[in-house]
């Protein structure tokens, strides 16, 4: 795992905290930090926990669905895209937004708790930044952690427009 420290810190005024990109095998393809003064776990443990949390939370929310809930046991494997999908949770100190694509890519964006709905923003990060600058780069090996200057720059520029 060699996702280096994220690109530029945009300054302490930013409401962004960090962004994770996971593939379906749970590999953290990219970890981008804007502001995270406190970090207790090792980077690898931290990433694994976040991935595990989201994986379980997704199964759990689908299981809880009072209308379309599945019949299988809690934790039983789901087909991609099956069940409902959750997109964020909020604590008093941060907000976590989540998006998953049909290819199993998971985007996790942690921000200031006052941040509004980030679903469109995450779609933009996927469609116009990740796909454009990472997936289409012919020298990028699919499913491997990446370091990509263009991705970092464009991401930084884009998040500056969010507030």
């Amino acid at each position, binding site marked *: 795992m060699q996702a280096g420290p994220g690109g530029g810190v945009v300054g302490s005024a930013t409401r962004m905290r960090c962004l994770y990109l996971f593939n379906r*095998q*749970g590999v953290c393809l990219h970890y981008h930090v804007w502001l995270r003064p406190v970090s207790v776990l090792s980077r690898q443990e931290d990433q694994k926990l976040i991935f595990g949390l989201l994986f379980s939370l997704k199964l759990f929310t689908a299981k809880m669905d009072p209308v379309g809930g599945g019949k299988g046991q809690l934790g039983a494997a*789901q087909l991609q895209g099956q069940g409902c999908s959750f997109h964020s949770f909020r604590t008093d100190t941060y907000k976590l937004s989540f998006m998953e694509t*049909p*290819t199993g890519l998971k985007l996790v964006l942690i921000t200031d708790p006052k941040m509004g709905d980030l679903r469109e923003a995450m779609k933009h990060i996927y*469609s116009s930044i990740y*796909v454009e600058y990472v997936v289409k780069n012919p020298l990028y090996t*699919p499913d491997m952690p990446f370091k990509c200057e263009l991705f970092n720059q464009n991401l930084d520029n884009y998040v500056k427009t969010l507030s």
Partner: protein
Amino acid sequence: MPPNSRPGDAVFANVERVNAELFTLTYGAIVRQLLTDFEEVDEVNKQLDTMGYNIGIRLIDDFLAKANITRCSDFRETAETIVKVGFKMFLGVTGTVTNWNAEGTECSLILDDNPLVDFVELPETCQGLYYCNMLCGVIRGALEMVSMRTEVKFVKDVLRGDEAFEIRLKLLEQVPEEYPYKDDD
């Protein structure tokens, strides 16, 4: 899929185009080079499929980013989406889906018009060649990334004297999402 009759058109209007001759000749140059490198047509068919697979696993993300479609409810809808939206987006043409088996897991994708073969005639020495075999790999790679294992192959080829291009698409399994770590690691 949106309910209008030609869902690929809207996306097609918004994607960047390249010159058709450049596209066709580039593909031709790849096939030509493979024929030089591998000599055996069977091996070339295999290489084209592998190259297509490597394109497909990337192209699917581009497709999802631009096509703005929702999840397909079943494999029939998936096949329709491939020929109506996917082919339109990347090849500029559409096809039709026919010959479903009873279980709905196997069908034929028919292409009447295929820009890859615009200037092509198969010479004597290349009789077993599936010139467009890369398309099969692309479809297989793209579907694998959305958790469908498939088998994709050409069964009819205009270059071999058939009336249309027919790709046989067979769904082998839908792979459920598993937790990738073991409990103790």
